[in-house]
C-alpha cells in the first residue's frame, strides 16, 4: 500500500509528464543534437557530426561581443524599468477607489498585446519624421532638431528597451498587487503600534512578505526578456549595423537567413547553459529555498 501511495501522484501526473516530454524534452534534446551537427535545412541529406565547430564559429563571430553586451544592457534595463514601474503601479492600485476595476482593466492591457503590435506602435512613435515623441520633445524645447531614434546606434537599443518595458509593466503590476493584497494587515498594525514609520513598515514588513513573489517574477521576467526577439525584429531588425541586436534576435535572424540550424542551435545551447547558471545563482543569492523552509 505504501509503495502504491508513493507511486500514486506520478500516475496522475503521467499526462503532464508526457506533454513535457513531447513538447519540451524532445526539442531540447534535438537542439543539443543539432548544435553538434552540420545541419543546414537546405542540405538535409548531408548532415554530419560537427564536434565543436558551431561553437567555435560563434566565438569567431566579430559581432558577438557587442551583441552580448547589448543583451546584458537589454535585460538589466528592461527588467529594472518593469520592476520599478510595476511596483509603483501595484502600490497605486492597492487601495480601493471609485472605478478601480475599470482603471485596472485599462492599465493591464499592454500585457495582452502581441509583440508585433507593440513593435509597430513604438516604431511609429519613435519615427524621426512624423513620430510624436520627436514632436513633443521639440515642442517642449528639449531638443533643437529631430533625433533619428531608430537610425542611430546610440539610441536604437533604448527604443526597444522602452517598448518592451512598457509591455511588461502590467505583469509585474499584477503579480506584486496580488502579493501586496495577501500581506497580513495585522502585521502592519503591529508595526504601527511599535512606532515604525512608513518606510520602515514597507522595508521590514511588506517587502519580506512579498519576497517569494518578487523573486519568482524577476526570475521569470529575466528569462522572458532574454528570449524576446519579436519586438527587436520588428522595430529595428537589429540595425543599424547590428547595434540593436540581442543574442535572441541575432539567433533568429541567423537561423532563418543562413538556414544553418546547427549554428543557431549551438547559440541556443549556450543560452540554455547561461540561463541555468543564472537561475542557480539567483536562487542561491536570494536564498529563495531557505526562506521557504
Amino acid at each position, binding site marked *: 500500500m505504501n509503495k502504491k501511495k508513493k507511486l500514486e501522484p506520478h500516475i496522475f501526473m503521467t499526462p503532464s509528464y508526457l506533454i513535457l516530454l513531447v513538447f519540451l524534452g524532445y526539442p531540447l534534446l534535438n537542439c543539443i543534437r543539432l548544435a553538434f551537427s552540420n545541419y543546414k535545412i537546405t542540405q*538535409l541529406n548531408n548532415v554530419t557530426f560537427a564536434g565543436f565547430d558551431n561553437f567555435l564559429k560563434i566565438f569567431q563571430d566579430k559581432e558577438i561581443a557587442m551583441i552580448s553586451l547589448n543583451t546584458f544592457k537589454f535585460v538589466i534595463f528592461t527588467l529594472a524599468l518593469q520592476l520599478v514601474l510595476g511596483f509603483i503601479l501595484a502600490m497605486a492600485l492597492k487601495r480601493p477607489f471609485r472605478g478601480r476595476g475599470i482603471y485596472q482593466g485599462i492599465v493591464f492591457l499592454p500585457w495582452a498585446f502581441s509583440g508585433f503590435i507593440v513593435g509597430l506602435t513604438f516604431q511609429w512613435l519613435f519615427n524621426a519624421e512624423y513620430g510624436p515623441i520627436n514632436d513633443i520633445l521639440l515642442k517642449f524645447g528639449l531638443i533643437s532638431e*529631430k533625433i*533619428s531614434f*531608430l537610425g542611430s546606434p546610440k539610441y536604437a537599443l533604448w527604443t526597444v528597451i522602452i517598448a518592451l518595458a512598457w509591455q511588461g509593466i502590467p505583469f509585474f503590476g499584477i503579480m506584486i498587487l496580488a502579493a501586496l493584497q495577501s500581506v497580513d494587515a495585522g502585521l502592519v498594525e503591529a508595526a504601527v503600534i511599535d512606532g515604525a514609520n512608513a518606510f520602515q513598515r514597507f522595508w521590514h514588513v511588506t517587502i519580506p512578505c512579498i519576497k517569494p513573489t518578487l523573486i519568482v517574477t524577476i526570475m521569470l521576467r529575466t528569462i522572458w526578456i532574454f528570449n524576446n526577439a519579436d519586438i527587436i525584429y520588428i522595430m529595428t531588425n537589429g*540595425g543599424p549595423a547590428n547595434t540593436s541586436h540581442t543574442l535572441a534576435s541575432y539567433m533568429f535572424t541567423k537561423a*532563418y537567413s*543562413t538556414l544553418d540550424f546547427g549554428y543557431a542551435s549551438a547559440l541556443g545551447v549556450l543560452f540554455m547553459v547561461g540561463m541555468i547558471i543564472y537561475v542557480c545563482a539567483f536562487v542561491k543569492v536570494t536564498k529563495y529555498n531557505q526562506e521557504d523552509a
Partner: protein
Amino acid sequence: MKKKLLSIGLVAALLVSAFAAGCGKKNTDGDDKKTDGKVKEIRFMDVTPNPAREQAFQELIKDFNDKNPDVKVVYESTPWDQSHNKLVTLGSAGSLPDVFIMHQQWNAEFTSAEWVTPLDDYIADWKDADKIIPYVKNVLMEYDQKNVYGYTFGIPDGLTTAAMFVRTDWLEEAGLTTEDLETWEGIFEASKKLTIPEKNQYGFAFRGARMGSEQMGMYMLAELGGKLYEEDGTCRINSPEGIEAFKKYCALYKDGYAPQDAINWGYTEMVQGFTSGLSGILNQTSEVVATCEDSMEDGTWTTIPFPRASDGNIYSKADSYYMAMSNQSKNKDEAWRFIEFMLEPENNRKLSEACLFIPVMEGAENDPRFTEGGMKGFVDSMNDPTFIREPFYGYFPELGEFMETFYDAEVQKYLLGQQTAEESIKNISDYLTTAQQKYMQESPDTPIPTSVRTDGSEVK
C-alpha cells in the same frame, strides 16, 4: 476511497473521449471522401498577398474550380515578411502546398533541398508555351533556370521591374524636367536640388535597411558595366570604379539628401517617404503605382524609366514571382492544370492588372492599362533596346545570409562613419569572392553570374 475512484473515473473518461475524438475524425474524413467522389484538393499558397491580388486570385480560383469539378483549389496566403520562414518550415516538415508562389531569391535553396518539381515535361505539352514574351522565355526561364539548374521549376506569372517615381511639381519648382533624370548623374544632381531640409523635403528616398544595400548595388553594378565577377570568381567591386560608385551612391545619405532616419528605412518606410511628401525620387517596382494613385494628387508625380549608367545602357532588374509545384505534392497533374489555367493569356492579364505587373503572355501590348499612366515608366524601361538585366550576386547557399544579415550591416557601418568605404567594400567583396570561389569548386558546371540582354545573350 470515493475520491480516488472518482479521479480514476475522470482520467478514464478523458482518455476514452480523446480516443473517441481521434477515431471520430478519421471516420468523418473517410466519409467526406466518399460523398465528394474523387475531388482532389490542391493547396495553393500566395506569399505576397494584398487585397486586390487576393481578390484576383480568389476569382480565378473560383473560375478554375467551376470548370474543373474534379479538382478543388484551396487558397492560402502568408505575409511576405514571414513567407520565406514559413515555406522553409513547411518544406522541411514535408508539408509544402501543392502549388506556391516563390521568389527568385529562393531558387538555390529550394532546388538544392529538392522542394520543387521539374516542369519541363509539362511545358513540352503546354499549348500556350509559344505565347510567352521573349524576356521571360529567354532570361527568366531559359537563362536563369535551365542554364543554371538544368531544369525549369517555376513559371513566371507577372513581370516587375524598377523605375523612378518622381515628384513632378518639385521638379518644376527646381527648374528641372524629367529628361534631366535620364541618367544616374541626373538623379544625383536632382536629389541635391530637390533637398530643402527646412521644408522637410529631401531629394532621394534612400533605403538603408532591410535589403536596402541591393539598391545601392544596382548603381554600383551599372558602373562596373554589369560585371560582378572575374572568370576565376574574384569579385570586381573592390576596384577604384567600384569604390567610387559606392561612395557616390552613399553620398545621397551622407550628404543629407535623405532624412537621417532613412538608415532604418525598408520598403514600407521609403514608399511612405515618397507618398507623404518627404522624398522626391523613389526607386521602386510597379506595385507602388497603386499606392501612389491612392494617396497622392494626380499630376504631382509620374514614373520615368530606370536611369542610364555612364556607358549609356540601362542596367536594371526585371523579375517575376514563379508559380512552382512542390515535389511533395501528391496530385501533380492537377497542380499543373491549375498553373496552366492561371497562365492562359486572359487570366494572366487579369492577375497582372490587379497586381500591376507586366503580363508575361503576349497580347497586352494594346491594353492602355499597361501602356499609359503609372505603368508607362516600367514598360518603357523594359522596351528600351539597351536594357540589361544585372547579374545575381551568386547561386551559393550563403546568399541568404549575405543579403539579409551581412550586406546591409557593412553598408550601414560606412553610412554611420564606423568604417571607411574601402573597408566596407573590401569586406563585401571578400565575402562574395570566398563564397563564389567555393561554390565554383563544388559546382563547376554552374555558370558565373553574368548580365543578360533581353534576347538571352550574355554581356561579356
